[in-house]
């Protein structure tokens, strides 16, 4: 298992470099100009100077090598220095955003908490409600509960978040009177710091709407997987054997069936985690959470190539990492699976 993990981690290095190159080429070849959003009253010569000051005067391969050096060498060194205080970073060029003219990674760390709080919590809540719903729906197939569960998950699956989000805002922020207990804010305050009970309540209240919207979407997806996987296993011979041995229904369902059914579901859940870090572009925009998803979309709109490149490569790294986690988890859930 250890060998397998090390081998996979080593293999990740060329994979990431290759992904970086592909993303860089896609971004460079795509049309777009970081000065296109400036007012037309700024003359073209000035725009040309701005482009040159951003480093756009250099050939693409030089820009790529500079980015690789800054992202894979300078940034980790900077991280080590800020964590340990060792003097390893010096003052080399970090990855600078074209929009903010400041290091991209600083903004990423600034954005991470709100994304993890809102999108991460929604994922957790979604998974926590999806698993029991999936189990019960499968165990009592075609019952009332199953029908309602199917209906709700179909809605969660097919109604886009930009609709549910705005719908909830209209109900809870616009129609609800301001002084009502049920009134909830439509705009997320990212500057709020939880220091006491009052601010904690405020934080919970502003998270309710975005978390609900996202959790509904996540739960719909995961509960369908859980149900299908449970149904596959419930009709297996080993389940009949277990029942014939006189095991209680509880043991049959939770020990035998559930553990086997979790294998595909764990893959789905683990592979979904990188998306949490990717943020929820639409939901973040609707509730002004301004997390990583909003950072990515504004960077794309502004043709801020260093930011888009850095974020997408981080997502790629996370996907590779969580694929590995999912593979390791298989081994834990099913002792027959061994990689060595």
């Amino acid at each position, binding site marked *: 298992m250890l060998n397998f993990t090390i081998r996979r981690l080593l293999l990740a290095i060329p994979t990431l470099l290759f992904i970086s190159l592909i993303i860089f080429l896609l971004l460079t070849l795509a049309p777009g100009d970081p000065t296109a*959003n400036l007012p037309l009253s*700024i003359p073209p010569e000035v725009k040309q*100077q701005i482009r040159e000051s*951003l480093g756009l005067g250099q050939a693409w391969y030089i820009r790529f090598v500079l980015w690789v050096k800054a992202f894979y060498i300078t940034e980790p060194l900077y991280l080590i220095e800020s964590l340990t205080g060792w003097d390893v970073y010096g003052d080399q060029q970090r990855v600078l955003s074209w929009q*903010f003219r400041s290091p991209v990674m600083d903004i990423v760390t600034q954005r991470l908490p709100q994304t993890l709080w809102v999108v991460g919590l929604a994922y957790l809540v979604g998974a926590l409600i999806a698993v029991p719903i999936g189990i019960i729906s499968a165990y009592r197939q075609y019952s009332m509960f199953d029908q309602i569960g199917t209906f709700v998950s179909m809605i969660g699956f097919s109604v886009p978040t930009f609709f549910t989000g705005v719908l909830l*805002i209209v109900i809870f*922020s616009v129609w609800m009177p301001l002084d009502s207990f049920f009134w909830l804010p439509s*705009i997320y305050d990212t*500057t709020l710091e939880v220091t006491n009970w009052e601010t904690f309540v405020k934080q919970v209240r502003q998270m309710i709407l975005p978390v609900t919207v996202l959790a509904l979407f996540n739960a719909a997806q995961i509960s369908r997987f859980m149900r299908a996987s449970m149904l596959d296993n419930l009709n297996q011979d080993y389940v009949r054997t277990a029942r014939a041995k006189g095991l209680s229904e509880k043991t049959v369902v939770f020990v035998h069936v559930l553990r086997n059914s979790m294998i595909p579901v764990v893959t789905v859940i683990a592979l979904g985690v990188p998306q949490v870090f990717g943020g929820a572009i639409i939901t973040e925009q609707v509730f002004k959470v301004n997390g990583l998803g909003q950072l990515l979309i504004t960077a794309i709109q502004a043709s801020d190539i260093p930011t888009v490149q850095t974020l997408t490569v981080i997502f790629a790294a996370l996907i590779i990492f969580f694929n590995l986690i999912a593979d390791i988890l298989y081994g834990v859930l099913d002792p027959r699976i061994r990689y060595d």
Partner: protein
Amino acid sequence: MNLKATLLGAAAAFAMAPMAMAERGSDGHVNIIYWQAPSLMNPYLSGGTKDLEAASLVIEPLARYDETGAIVPWLVDTVPTVENGGVAEDLTSITWTLSEGLLWSDGTPVTSADVRFSWEYCTAEGGGCAQSEKYNDVTDVEIVDDRTVIVHFGISKPFPYGPFVGAQSPIIQASQFADCLGAAAPSCTDANFSPIGTGPFTVTDFRPNDVISLEANQNYRDANLPAFSSVTFKGGGDATAAGRAVLETGEFDYAWNLQLAPDVLANMQSAGQGQIVSGFGTLVERIMVNMTDVNPDLGEERGTAAHPHPFLTDRDVRQALSMAIDRALLTEIGYGDAGRPSCNVLPAPAIYASTANDGCLVQDIAGANALLDAAGWERGSDGVRERDGVRLSMLYQTSTNAVRQDFQALIKQWWSEIGVETELRNLDASVFFGGDPASPDTFQKFFADVEMYANNFDGTDPESYMANWACEQAPRPETQWQGNNMPRFCSEEYDALVAEMSTTGDINERARLAKAMNDMLMQEYVIIPLVDRGRVSAHSNTLGGVILNTWDSELWNAADWHRLSN
């Protein structure tokens, strides 16, 4: 009568009371939402309107424009003019004297060295200063004493209010930005995120593209201002959500630039939480007519003056295209109260606005048809007019934007009624407005027959704006396709007017010249103006002191904003 007068007086006294007793920070907190989030607080590094306006809460110019477009002194006591001796007789220098006792928010005095430094900062090599045009022709900024600077120009400048006037060219603190000149500018993250300024507020926390927290500047020049002790400047989302947050849910006090359908805005306002304010500047949505042939077979010479357009060089065709358009309908559909039909490419300020072209306000399809018939353009079997084998068939391009696509569809319909065939095309804004000389799809290359976009100019002086249509401004291969004369219009007479304006100091004479240039462009129909687009913002009913200013930053008078008690 006496009783009534007394009561009125008492009521007035009560109404005045909060104003009179107001002291710094007494009105608590104010929430502002900009649906485009600011990325930087340094307008010299980022020319975006959102960044410019956020920065205007903190850093200020020597003088700025008020809501009528007049220049008002800001960090000085008087605006220098030729009459008061502040501007040299030969128009080559202007002398500014800072107000006495001005302090930066860190408590140090503002001196003429800071003014000189602001010029050095923006003109430093390799800095990519977005506002360097403001400092065009400045040869030196001479420090006379601690409070006096003389800006010297290399040529005579009839309008010397480019440098240090308006939100685009504020004064920054020399000691804070001293190590940030030229190529080092981006490395000064702290300075770019929280500049030390003279404005009513100072930055306490800046989160790029998200939110800015500000508090009252304790060293602000008026001891009783600003009335608010802190500001949250939130960015992100979209115009609908921003409008909703002010007009419907009441979570925010001020929302900027609400480009929304007129009925959506009216609906929001009916919720009773706030009100809409609008104002007009110089932004005109217009169609540019290409005078050159863009046939791809021409290769390198495509879109250059060497090959005139096969039919758009016929003035009758251009006039017919303009006559067929119903500007009132376009305005109603696209902008509602935030727009008005325009027949001029230079619609404001009032002294520059011509009335000679107002005939265009009425759509005249029959007249356009008659004009084309008389010019010998005959309808073919498919209804499209042609003459000598040349068909009136055009490519009409613009940027991707819901309103612009509506306009394209309507205009295509009207043009088909006069026998002109139109093919529509829309391009992503970042490509269309991007200056990439290698891309065939930029608005400068203009590889289409007509194109539509909006443009305006900073401040109130139209000299450089009107100079956009001089012959030498035509984008062509020799200029790497840069330039502002998209129609490639070229007239000696027009160039003479441009040259004359650049040496004329008298304001009335300048107005006459600007009008003459506008009328020439309009009557040649090389630019077809459509809509004069206004600015729409919204503020809460409890926020007082808002004066919408389209000539400068919308937040120009944030120091005077205060809370109204209901």
